[in-house]
């Protein structure tokens, strides 16, 4: 399609007929049908998977790849993706296509399912397992149904993966599969299945969920083949081209809303494995309907999980631009990615080179890279600016032996935590949503408590944590959890050191933190004050371990991403996200909004709502 701007995002009927050989109605029916197929595939995973990351959290991406048709500029591009985990659906454009190239497109037969999880082949981290199934019309290959699903455990030394500080390099991450068949002509390849049932800590889930993936892919294949049968192969191919071009046109139109210019932003990850802050830089160059996101100047990759894949960073850049344009409501597909170029220097923490470990870096650096785009473009215009949201996929996981049943059983319980967004010109930041790349939901507390020996005592917003502004950020959320057996944990929670940023006079939100009250479940149950606790992540007094302010002399920063930390039965673990950054001068906040904040407990006083001294967290 043309690379110049258009003043219309929707083509006229005669243009569609001339360019694609389609009547507009058929083109639109099939454009929506492709998305509908992807959404049906998503529901299949939701309804049949056993892993809570798949049946509730939505930590997967699923959809369709277009046919290969050079005369229509189609090359197995991601043509339709569902709504779950956007980070995954962007990566499908690289992960799945590189797997097809490596395997060989001419080797596929109907009923085959290819499976792979090498993050250095266009992926994210080893826990994200790719799978695809060919779509055929007779002997003609017409594309693929594809998925990426986050596996709760992929083997290796750290239950649940995300082993910041423990996984030095890629050899310590768990099983890593080059593309291979999970199903051959519809028949299960037992040896491939056994890689999961023998080498992960979740054999029962794996046994079920691998079959669910195949089932969801089969659904996509069946539905796509039905449309091809009904409309014909050439019409399906033309509609795929139309669908990709449609999203490209919409993105180019939306990019025209950003003033041309060069915009820069920088941020820090709390720490590397040695405790040093990690610098991240982003330059956004924008001209007419073109945009380039450049991460040059970011710090180098670091061992023990402080690095991420280039494909992850490219995905983050696309979604960062998309977040700025979010009101447009553009169907996500590879056509929408065409106007965006990404520069991501090899050897930086945002572009790992083998043998660096990227298992932990996937979530924390992806989210930083996405927010950097928003922070940079925020300088272009106050109307586009957003205060910084909490920007890590906050994770706290417990692993141990569940002794509640007739026989002890290993368990891995992991939650991702939603948090607050920054204020914008449109209004206050929302209080509780997962970061844009995740778009996941937190699973049911009740189901979690039944499934695992872990209690969630409370989860609530925290007063005086929202960054003040004309439009304030969302407040921090604090969750209290109690393991009912001795466990080892994994956790990742950035912004324990550097708080969120406000924009255009808006103020920062509070810092995040993790603390623990040892053997305090009975005290909590009796309503007794638990006191300050012991810092697990955040600033601590080196003598007592108690929380202190960052500027306290001798304050010690406890790393905000770790694995293998032990908690005991009855310990109360307090997990608190950062507060969102504000937008605009808080002195200009509407009085009615301040009264509402006081009523809702967002702030404890008008002084705090107006940006007076509040507790930014210790």
């Amino acid at each position, binding site marked *: 399609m043309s690379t110049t701007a258009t003043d219309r995002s929707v083509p006229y009927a005669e243009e569609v007929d001339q360019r694609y050989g389609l009547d507009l109605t058929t083109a639109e029916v099939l454009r929506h049908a492709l998305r509908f197929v992807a959404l049906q595939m998503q529901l299949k995973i939701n309804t049949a998977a056993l892993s809570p990351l798949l049946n509730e959290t939505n930590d997967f991406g699923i959809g369709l790849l277009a046919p290969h048709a050079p005369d229509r500029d189609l*090359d197995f*591009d991601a043509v339709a993706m569902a709504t779950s985990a956007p980070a995954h659906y962007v990566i499908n*454009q*690289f992960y799945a*296509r*590189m797997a097809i190239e490596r395997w060989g497109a001419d080797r596929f037969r109907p009923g085959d399912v290819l499976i792979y999880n090498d993050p*250095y*082949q*266009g992926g994210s981290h080893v826990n994200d397992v790719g799978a695809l199934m060919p779509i055929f019309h007779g002997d003609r290959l017409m594309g693929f149904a594809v998925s990426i699903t986050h596996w709760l455990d992929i083997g290796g030394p750290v239950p649940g993966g995300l082993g910041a500080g423990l996984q030095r390099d890629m050899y310590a991450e768990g099983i890593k599969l080059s593309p291979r068949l999970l199903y051959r002509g519809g028949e299960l390849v037992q040896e491939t299945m056994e890689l999961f049932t023998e080498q992960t800590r979740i054999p029962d889930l794996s046994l079920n969920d691998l079959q669910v993936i195949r089932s969801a892919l089969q659904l996509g294949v069946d539905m796509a083949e039905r449309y091809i049968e009904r409309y014909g192969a050439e019409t399906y191919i033309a509609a795929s081209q139309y669908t990709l071009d449609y999203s490209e046109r919409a993105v180019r139109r939306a990019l025209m809303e950003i003033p041309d210019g060069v915009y820069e932003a920088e941020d820090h990850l709390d720490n590397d494995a040695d405790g040093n802050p990690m*610098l991240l*830089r982003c330059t956004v*160059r924008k*001209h*007419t309907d*073109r*945009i*380039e996101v*450049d991460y*040059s*100047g*970011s*710090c*180098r*990759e*670091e*061992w023990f999980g402080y690095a991420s*894949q*280039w494909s992850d960073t*490219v995905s983050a850049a696309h979604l960062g631009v998309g977040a700025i344009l979010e009101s447009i409501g553009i169907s996500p597909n*590879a*056509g929408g*990615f*065409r106007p*965006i*170029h*990404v*520069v*991501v*220097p*090899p*050897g*930086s923490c945002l*572009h*790992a*080179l*083998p*043998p*660096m470990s990227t298992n932990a870096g996937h979530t924390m650096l992806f989210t930083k890279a996405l927010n950097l785009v928003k922070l940079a473009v925020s300088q272009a215009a106050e109307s586009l600016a957003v205060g910084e949201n909490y920007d890590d996929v906050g994770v706290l996981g417990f692993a141990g032996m569940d002794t509640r049943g007739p026989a002890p059983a290993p368990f891995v319980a992991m939650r991702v935590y939603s948090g607050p967004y920054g204020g914008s010109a449109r209004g206050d930041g929302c209080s509780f949503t997962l970061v844009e790349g995740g778009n996941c939901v937190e699973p049911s507390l009740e189901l979690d408590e039944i499934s695992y020996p872990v209690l969630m005592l409370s989860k609530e917003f925290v007063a005086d944590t929202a960054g003040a502004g004309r439009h304030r950020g969302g407040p921090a959320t604090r969750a209290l959890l109690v393991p009912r057996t001795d466990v080892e944990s994994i956790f990742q929670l950035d912004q324990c050191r550097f708080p969120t940023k406000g924009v255009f006079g808006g103020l920062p939100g509070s810092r995040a933190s993790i603390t623990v009250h040892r053997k305090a479940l009975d005290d909590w149950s009796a309503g007794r004050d638990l006191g300050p606790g012991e810092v697990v992540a955040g600033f601590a007094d080196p003598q007592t371990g108690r929380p202190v302010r960052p500027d306290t002399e001798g304050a010690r920063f406890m790393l905000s991403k770790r694995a293998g930390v032990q908690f005991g039965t009855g310990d109360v673990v307090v997990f608190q996200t950062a507060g969102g950054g504000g937008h605009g001068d808080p002195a200009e906040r509407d009085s009615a909004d301040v009264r509402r904040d006081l009523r809702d407990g967002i702030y404890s006083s008008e002084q705090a709502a107006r940006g007076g001294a509040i507790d930014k967290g210790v």
Partner: protein
Amino acid sequence: MLFPQPTEMTIAEPVDPVGGTCGECGAATLARYRLVDYRGWLRVVKCRSCLAVASSERVVAPPQGTS
């Protein structure tokens, strides 16, 4: 293929100036560097002012080899 950890503390993509002017905007700001588009890795000659791509070639993703 395995790579050593860089010795530099921060990493930037090498950007090599190229002579001539942009065919679209006329600026003398052409440069050669690598980037990722929607289908993967490219080495481009691109205008740093208007972002027009003067030329491009597909290259191997750096983790898979030198590019």
